[in-house]
């Protein structure tokens, strides 16, 4: 995420620049209090709105997860009953296994594809604008729409398989979407198609902002193009890998439309993902308490996954600050 990496930066910069401005005004004494109040407002209104939503809604959801709520939120306390119940359903167990497969596969495939596109586009190619737009357009269109198209393409009866079969290669099979143990990979394919453009944009942005002196020095050392990427450019932009991974991970965890448009959770319940389970329990089954429990479990998972990462960044920032 630009964010996490940026966090390291500001922390690194923090002690080095103690002169960062403070929210005090030294101008004409009469207007000072008014401006000070306005300043506080300008700082706190947008942040307050965000915090209210994030913290408030999270606390609310946690509360609901301990209540017997079904159709509507109700008060009452049922302890961990909702958690026990949802953890016993195969839906949640499958969703978690799938989240690992999908999360890893989606992040790896999308960043690999994005990096490939970025490196290719970085070769001063003609028509870069057009090509870039082609790789970015999947981001512009709702997955409710493109997911439907992908569900046609990946469908063996009407999609790519049928097309190839009709061209004469009758033995060709591409029917992962109907196989319970492979269908999750079709989500990765469609997801990578949508997200690769964004990864490409970030990588390309990184490649283009590498210090030209660094490149020149490497050239003088006689580095060839691939060596240049492997030894100089890619190591220099490694923080972008973290940014890309974090953004894609965030997409992976929240994935919902993709499943609904492509597989509806099937075949069977083999392509459930946690966000789908949350929606399913909360709204389709009218089990608000259980849906909230799944949402809380999702957030806890997130903390477990992201916390070590945050700690690492903090340590790195501290080390850099000391250096």
């Amino acid at each position, binding site marked *: 995420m630009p964010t996490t990496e940026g966090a390291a930066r500001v922390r690194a910069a923090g002690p080095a620049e103690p002169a960062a401005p403070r929210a005090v005004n030294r101008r004409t004494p009469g207007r000072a209090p008014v401006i000070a109040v306005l300043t506080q407002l300008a700082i706190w209104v947008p942040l307050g709105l965000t915090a209210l939503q994030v913290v408030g809604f999270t606390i609310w959801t946690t509360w609901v997860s301990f209540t017997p709520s*079904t*159709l*509507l939120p109700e008060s009452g306390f049922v302890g961990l009953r909702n958690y026990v*119940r949802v953890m*016993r*359903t*195969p*839906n949640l167990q499958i969703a978690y296994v799938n989240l690992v497969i999908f999360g890893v596969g989606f992040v790896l495939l999308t960043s690999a594809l994005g990096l490939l596109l970025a490196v290719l586009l970085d070769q001063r190619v003609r028509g870069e604008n057009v090509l870039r737009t082609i790789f970015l357009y999947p981001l512009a269109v709702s997955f409710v729409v493109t997911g439907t198209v992908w*569900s046609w393409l*990946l*469908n*063996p*009866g*009407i999609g790519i*398989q049928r097309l190839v079969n009709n061209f004469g290669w009758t033995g060709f099979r591409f*029917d992962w*979407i*109907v196989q*319970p143990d492979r269908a999750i990979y079709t989500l990765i394919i469609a997801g990578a198609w949508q997200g690769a453009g964004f990864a490409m944009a970030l990588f390309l942005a990184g490649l283009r902002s590498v210090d030209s002196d660094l490149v020149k020095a490497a050239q003088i050392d006689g580095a060839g193009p691939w060596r240049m990427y492997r030894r100089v450019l890619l190591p220099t932009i490694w923080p972008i890998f973290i940014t890309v991974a974090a953004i894609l991970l965030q997409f992976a965890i929240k994935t919902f439309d993709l499943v609904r448009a*492509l*597989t*509806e*959770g*099937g*075949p*069977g*319940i*083999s392509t459930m993902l946690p966000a789908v389970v949350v*929606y*399913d329990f909360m*709204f*389709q*089954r*009218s*089990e608000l308490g259980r849906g909230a429990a799944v949402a809380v479990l999702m957030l806890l998972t997130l903390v477990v996954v992201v916390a070590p990462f945050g700690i690492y960044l903090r340590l790195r920032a501290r080390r850099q600050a000391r250096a």
Partner: protein
Amino acid sequence: MSHVTRRGVVAGSAALLAAPLSGRAFAAAAVTPRLTAISQWSAGSDGAAITALGRVFEQHGGIWQHNPVPGFTTEMMNKLRAEILAGNPPAVSQLKGPEIAAWSKIYPTINISPWVQAAGLEPHVPAELAASCKPGGHWIALPLQVYRINTLFMSVPGMKRAGVTTPPKTWAEFNTVAAKMKAAGMTPLANGGIRWDDGMKFEIALAGISPDAYRRAIMHLDTKALRGPEVLAAFAQLRKFSSWMDPDIAAQSWAVNVPAFMKGDMGMVLMGGWAQGNLLHAGAKPADFISLAAPQDSGPPCFDLNADCFIFWQQKAADLKAGQTLFAQIMMQPATQEMYSKITGSIPARTDVDLNQPGFLDGQRDSAQNLRAAIAGKRVLLSLAHNMAQPNGTTAAMIDVLTEFVHNPAIQPPDAQKRLVGAVEGA
């Protein structure tokens, strides 16, 4: 019964205008009736039908404010939930089965029993359907239309190709026909890949094996019946179905298979009565297929019922109250139900509507006849997959088991039966 015969859609609404309605007089005296309504019917023939209903309401001097929420039923319920939370539900909203009872607990509804009595509706509605509309003993919701779920469609070219002359009447005959079709290189079952489609196959199997076991196991969740031999046999039949289905359907609607069915590459469809609409819209002629009740192992065909209803929410504004009165009266009119079913392809919820008139098709007439016979023989069942038999939470948990079973041949019927019992207990 005879006063509504031989009238088309337009004539039907004209007849409605002519029919004496006390609400109209009431409206003229006090306020202009207004109706706020939520449904999921926005486009296609569903959208056309509800729009036509709105026109009738307007012709009676009412203001029609329909808010369709497109997408799945879930989105419609989200909207309803939001409006109830905000303290402002619509005057009426589309709701069905046990959800009527569940939702009526979270916001006050109105007692419409006097109107139902005045219209003489109750004797003409299947008791099972009426029960779902009056969870607390009095009517709070009204049925609009009914579909038969246990319907078998046979492709005429497919029958020729497989050398089948008569449609199967029992599951044993069905299995023979399907095997013949398979041997002829066809896909015997044209199915869809959405989860309720899998659930529906199971319920049609069980209803055909034993309506009584269905009633006890699915509608009453009787553990003994759920563990009984009929449910096990239904799973075995479902396993057979799964080997005859289109393996390539994924999450597509069954409508994708309509061309293959029309050509005779696929032989049969087990689907609700609306499949007729799919076929006709795709260009099939009535002679291209036959539709009848799905196989029944003993006795006359049962009727596995799916119905759409409107629930009436308590209102404060006088114009909305007047609108509810007027709407209820219009909805209960045989002419309205007739008009509605002609557009959607369903059958009227009122069993006293005569379908021997232009605008109805043989499939609808067969369904209506089947319903009347099933009421007399106490063989009316409520659909599981279409949320008529159980509340949504229980239904979803049960369908999880059914859809997994269909897509995973490694699961054996006895194991699936245990899972189904577990799902019911855990829901």
